[in-house]
């Protein structure tokens, strides 16, 4: 009987108890590699397996938990040797107990790699996948695979994909939660349950860290979000950190474990601190337990998630539309220059404004959309908590993004064309995503609502043939422009209503299209938004930074009763002073109060006003703002100067740069300190933003003094120093191609060649990563890249910089600017 049969036929399944605890009791040294015992003391491992089977285990875990390429790097044995022997020892013991074609099963036990995934750590998703693949191929003779003690949902996803793509074995997954109901990396219970079910795991649950009593709330919560069979492999209570002894008896353990059965737990076992006695006691108790009253669970909700946060589409949610280069000059420029921080900032702003999901589109001719999409997804999910909607027309881009996405995303989009459904739907099925279905096909967008509904039905039927559950489909009935097709507005709304009520599917609409070509677009947009929500729109794709749009959305949710006790509305508007000023009949202007960035330091504000009252006041005030790090004021006076007709370059060259020079000199003299230097740089940065926008508006291209590549070297993940240098260089008008941290040698070389830069800046924080700096320099020289190299970082010295072949050593950010001036010119 294989695992899936066992799962179907049996009311419960018993796992084994701890391996580590048993090994330590038999003399395993702390910090040693327990998997080596498969080779050095196989009898001991077999003895432990036997003890568990005789205690009642239906499944035993192989002694291969840490048998991965990273943890075994210094072992005399290979991954293949360790895993093959581990599996064969377990299998041999299982066969000893075969009776009537039934025997215990051996689960290939796989734990975390032992390193954190990027961007917190330096292990890439792709490398993690390779480590798992190696283990899975070596362990193919096992009866099933179990991934346990996982804390990072993305690492677990890499493991599951490696298993699915290299083996047909069933998969059990358990993660380790703390008492705050999250894992160490922040994975929430909801996200874990939703994501693992979407990835087609056979059974999911929890193991380690806590005792069965403490795990009860965790298990309850998991059962609310999945209909999969649940697994619990609990510790023997809580450990004493010093003595490493556990707190509960086998009887107590057993009682608490049985308390979890009503929540759908079907697979029971023990983790740290448990031995054969725990399993035996629990096994006996399970035999007597009445499972007949336990209700089945069927979850049919549309829930998407990031690692941290699940969003249930059981009420309207805003999808932020700003991460998209279409019609945005600055966004395009950011993509071309690899300016990821610009994109991340767009994300943070939208979330702060009220977006609950973010659409991500980085398609631009001339850039590698696939690698950009992957990089942006990886970076985004490290800084924002909300789930993402992956937006591309290219199936390969979608698949690459789906692989590295940490959670369950929405894909934008598939449509009713045969070739679109054929290309997209299998990918949706494989990665278990939700998908936006556009109601158009080979014949274009149908004019009538009925015809769009038919396309929705067609896509729905095809999706279900692929095995995609209907709750994963989100229908876009398509917004047409009111100025061109006025009657189309009602057709769209009718279609939304029918999809929602007749097909019982979720709906999405891009809202802003409605107003193209009309004046006062904002007014049309939020009116249409309210109309569509009332007719059944679940997911408006819109700009949450437009306060009237978000306002209309929040007001709708309040009036419709979603926002219980108006709490969200009050939270957002309770402290904001909104005055409605009627300027002319029929025309109203809103003034938003006190949410912008305001310097509260009275003295400075008074000073500013003093400056502002004199002649040439704005110039002086801007200078003053720069020197004192006052951002809001800096922006204000830059705008005033531009409005007064002062030339952009005059502002830059006569006010901003001299002020930066002055503060830089004071910094060098030790008269001002790093925070002040960066504050001033921040003011300059904001002023430059104002000037840049102004130039883009008037179609003058901002002048760049030249490009500089910056990177924190391979293996180094501390990039704050490099980022400080970047801010300062940009202040002085250089375009920085920021390659980020932990950058491959070749990536630096490629970027230096592609962007034809004259200067490459490399940063390293640790003595252990200086060698990467040297390697990067060597490779640049080997490829005859015609550039100068400046290096910096805490542990570098001028002598060492010279020794590894750098042209310049910069002791701080200010000196980097001086070097850039020397190499590229002012």
């Amino acid at each position, binding site marked *: 009987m294989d695992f899936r049969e066992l799962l179907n036929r049996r009311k419960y399944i018993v796992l084994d108890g701890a391996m580590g605890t048993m090994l330590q009791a038999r003399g395993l*040294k*702390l*910090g*040693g590699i327990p998997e080596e015992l498969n080779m050095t003391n196989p009898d001991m491992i077999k003895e432990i397996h036997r003890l568990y089977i005789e205690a009642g285990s239906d499944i035993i875990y192989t002694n291969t938990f840490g048998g991965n390429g990273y943890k075994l790097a210094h072992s005399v044995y290979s991954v293949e040797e360790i895993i093959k022997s581990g599996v064969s020892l377990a299998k041999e013991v299982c066969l000893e107990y075969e009776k009537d074609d039934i025997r215990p099963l051996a689960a290939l036990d796989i734990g*975390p790699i*032992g*390193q*954190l995934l990027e*961007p*917190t*750590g*330096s*292990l890439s998703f792709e490398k993690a996948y390779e480590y798992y693949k190696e283990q899975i191929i070596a362990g193919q003779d096992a009866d099933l695979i179990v991934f346990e*003690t996982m*804390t990072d949902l993305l690492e677990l996803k890499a493991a599951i994909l490696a298993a699915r793509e290299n083996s047909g074995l069933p998969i059990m997954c358990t993660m*380790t939660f703390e008492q*705050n109901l999250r894992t*160490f*990396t*922040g994975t929430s219970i909801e996200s874990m349950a939703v994501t693992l079910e979407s990835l087609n795991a056979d059974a999911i649950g929890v193991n*380690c*860290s806590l005792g069965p009593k403490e795990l009860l709330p965790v298990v309850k919560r998991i059962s609310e979000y999945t209909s999969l069979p649940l697994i619990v492999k609990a510790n023997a209570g809580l450990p004493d*950190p*010093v003595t490493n002894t556990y707190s509960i008896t086998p009887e107590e353990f057993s009682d608490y474990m049985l308390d979890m059965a009503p929540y759908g737990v079907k697979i029971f076992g023990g983790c740290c601190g448990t031995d054969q006695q725990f399993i035996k006691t629990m096994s006996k108790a399970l035999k007597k337990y009445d499972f007949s009253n336990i209700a089945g669970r069927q979850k049919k909700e549309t829930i998407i998630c990031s690692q941290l946060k699940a969003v249930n589409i059981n009420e309207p949610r805003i999808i932020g539309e700003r991460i998209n280069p279409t019609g945005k000059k600055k966004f395009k420029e950011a993509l071309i220059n690899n300016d990821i*921080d610009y994109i991340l900032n767009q994300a*943070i702003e939208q979330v702060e404004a009220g977006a609950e999901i973010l659409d991500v589109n980085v398609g631009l001719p001339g850039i590698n959309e696939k690698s950009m999409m992957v990089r942006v997804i990886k970076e985004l999910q*490290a*800084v924002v908590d909300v789930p993402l909607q992956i937006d591309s027309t290219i199936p390969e881009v979608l698949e690459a993004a789906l692989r590295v996405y940490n959670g369950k995303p929405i894909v934008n989009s598939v449509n009713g064309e045969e070739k679109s459904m054929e290309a997209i739907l299998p990918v949706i099925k494989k990665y278990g995503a939700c998908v936006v279905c556009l109601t158009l096909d080979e014949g274009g967008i149908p004019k009538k609502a009925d015809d769009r509904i038919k396309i929705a039905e067609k896509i729905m039927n095809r999706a279900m043939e692929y095995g995609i559950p209907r709750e994963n489909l989100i229908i876009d009935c398509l917004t047409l422009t009111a100025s061109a097709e006025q009657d189309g507005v009602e057709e769209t709304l009718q279609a939304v209503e029918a999809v929602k009520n007749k097909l019982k599917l979720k709906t999405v609409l891009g809202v802003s299209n409605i107003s193209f070509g009309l004046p006062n677009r904002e007014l049309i947009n939020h009116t249409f938004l309210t109309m569509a929500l009332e007719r059944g729109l679940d997911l408006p794709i819109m700009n949450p930074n437009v306060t009237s749009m978000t306002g209309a959305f929040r007001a709708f949710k309040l009036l419709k009763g979603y926002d219980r006790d108006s709490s969200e509305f009050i939270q957002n508007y309770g402290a904001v002073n909104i005055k409605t000023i009627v300027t002319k009949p029929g025309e109203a202007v809103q003034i938003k109060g006190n949410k912008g960035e305001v310097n*509260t*330091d009275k*003295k*400075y504000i008074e000073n500013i006003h003093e400056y502002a009252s004199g002649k040439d006041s704005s110039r002086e005030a801007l200078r003053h703002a720069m020197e*004192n*790090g006052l951002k809001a004021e800096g922006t204000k006076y830059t705008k005033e100067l531009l409005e007064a007709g002062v030339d952009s370059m005059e502002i830059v060259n006569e006010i901003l740069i001299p002020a930066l020079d002055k503060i830089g000199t004071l910094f060098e003299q*030790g008269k001002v*300190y*790093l*925070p*002040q230097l*960066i*504050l001033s*740089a*921040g003011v300059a940065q904001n002023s430059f933003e104002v000037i840049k926008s102004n130039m883009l508006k008037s179609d003058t291209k901002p002048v760049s003094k030249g490009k500089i590549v910056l990177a924190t070297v391979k*293996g*180094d*993940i*501390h990039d*704050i120093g490099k*980022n*400080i240098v970047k*801010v300062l260089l940009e202040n002085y008008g250089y375009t920085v191609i920021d390659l980020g941290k*932990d950058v491959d040698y070749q990536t630096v070389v490629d970027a230096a060649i592609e962007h034809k830069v004259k200067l490459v800046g490399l940063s390293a*924080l*640790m*003595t*252990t*990563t200086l060698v990467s700096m040297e390697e990067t320099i060597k490779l640049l020289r080997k490829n005859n890249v015609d550039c100068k190299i400046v290096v910096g970082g*805490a*542990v570098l*010295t001028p002598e060492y910089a010279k020794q590894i072949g750098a042209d310049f050593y910069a002791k701080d950010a200010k000196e980097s600017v001086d070097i850039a001036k020397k190499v590229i010119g002012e």
Partner: protein
Amino acid sequence: MIDDISLDRLNIQEGARYLGYGTDTPDNNVMRLIKECEEDILRTAKPRYIYKVLNISGRDNGIYIEGTNLILLGKSIREHLEGCGSIVLLCATLSSDMDKLIRITQIKDMAKAVIMDAFAGVAVEQLCDKAEEKIKEEFNDKYFTYRFGFGYGDLPIEQMPECLNILNAQKTVGVSVTEGGMMSPSKSVACIIGISNNEIKSRKKGCITCNMRDKCSFRIRGERCGF
């Protein structure tokens, strides 16, 4: 994992010193940011730690930790642990949420990020101070050395992963070491404290045990970092 320590305020002077202020006081504008950072850090950090008390014995090339396969290498650690029969191996962290906060702050406001980074460093040191106090309470009539970190003197930083393995730090506190030898989450500390039955002669930390002494900006200005 132990999470019985909470931080209620950060040492402002210490943070200012990390930022290069020496004995100077930051101006009002910077002070306002410091206060904001302090609030953010105290709200975000999840202080936790794990430790083990292990017996040791001297070896020619270093210090053997009994019950393990590990010998701590070098002259510095041998000197540090002179007269000690056991050690506390300690790992403390503010969690990956702290890294995330620093990253987000870098995107939104670089000046604030610089301050945040420094003060998160202060926070993790304060966590270690408090953990150390608690651990010491368990031992009457014993004497302790100061916290010795990996990479101090000639104790190789490469031995940190092995020591974290002894603590099972990835599983117990969520701390691991990258291939480049960096701790992640970054605001984490791993260190060794010697325990002795006899009073320990004032063996102060100081520039002499510091690898950075030749290029230290404090020393250049004629100051000391306080280590």
